């Protein structure tokens, strides 16, 4: 029976509860050894995000990613966080990503939801309208 990255992440999170920094480092080393033993080293970059995801699930939190061309103000980020919390009922952790591909506006993604408020999306809709007109 093969072990998954998520299972290793869950084990690592549970074992690291209440541990000191050095002890946590040892646990992380052990987790990478388990990855290597199970030929899962190619997923090593997914381990810590998976631990973070486990932590959020335990704490009933969710990660929302906000993409925009320019950095958003604190007030705008709070508005977005409040909106997502009102929709999901979970405490939101926002990750802000600057994306040069976005002309203007912002795109919010959380869980399986994407909230596209960008100019790019409006242009895409315009293009579809012109093509089907």
């Amino acid at each position, binding site marked *: 029976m093969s072990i998954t990255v998520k299972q290793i992440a869950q084990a690592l999170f549970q074992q690291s509860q209440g541990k000191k920094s050095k002890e946590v480092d040892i646990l992380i080393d052990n987790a990478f050894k388990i990855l290597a033993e199970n030929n899962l080293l190619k997923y090593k970059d997914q381990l810590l995000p998976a631990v973070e995801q486990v932590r959020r699930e335990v704490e009933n939190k969710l990660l929302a990613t906000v993409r*925009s*061309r*320019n950095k*958003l*103000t604190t007030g*705008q980020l709070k*508005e*977005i966080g409040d*909106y997502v919390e009102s929709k999901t009922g979970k405490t939101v952790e926002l990750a802000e990503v600057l994306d040069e591909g976005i*002309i*203007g*506006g*912002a795109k919010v993604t959380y869980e399986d939801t994407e909230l596209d*408020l960008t*100019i790019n999306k409006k*242009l*895409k809709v*315009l*293009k*579809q309208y*012109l*093509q089907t*007109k």
Partner: protein
Amino acid sequence: MQELINTFHIDWKLMTAQIINFAIVLFVIWKFALKPIMKTMLERTKTIENSLEQAKEIEARVARTSEESQAKISAAQQEATVIITEASKTAEIKRQQAVTETEEKVANLVSQAKEQIERQKQEMVKQAQSEMAELVVQATSKVLEQKMDKATDKQLISDVLKKL
């Protein structure tokens, strides 16, 4: 009577002898000439009559044969006429079928060609629309990228967040 005998010098003996001679001659002629001739004549008459009857019978037979032949010829002609008529009808039906099939094929080809032309036309229009849309969007993107500064972007985000 005696006067008559004296006038013509009739000699009864001689006359009797002549009568007997005549009778003998007559008998001989009848026996050996007239009887065979009569017999031969009767046979010839019968033969001729038979020939005539046979000729009539042959003539009648020929007539019957001729009528039968004429009837057969007429029947054959009628049959031939029927066959020719049927053949003509069949040929006409086949010709009509061939014409109809050809017309249908031509109509189908024309219809398919029209449909193909219409499809190509629609595809061209669609492609032109797509290209035009692409150009419009690209041009708009370029303009917006140039015009969109931080303040405008900030205002835009604030506006859309208010609509949430």
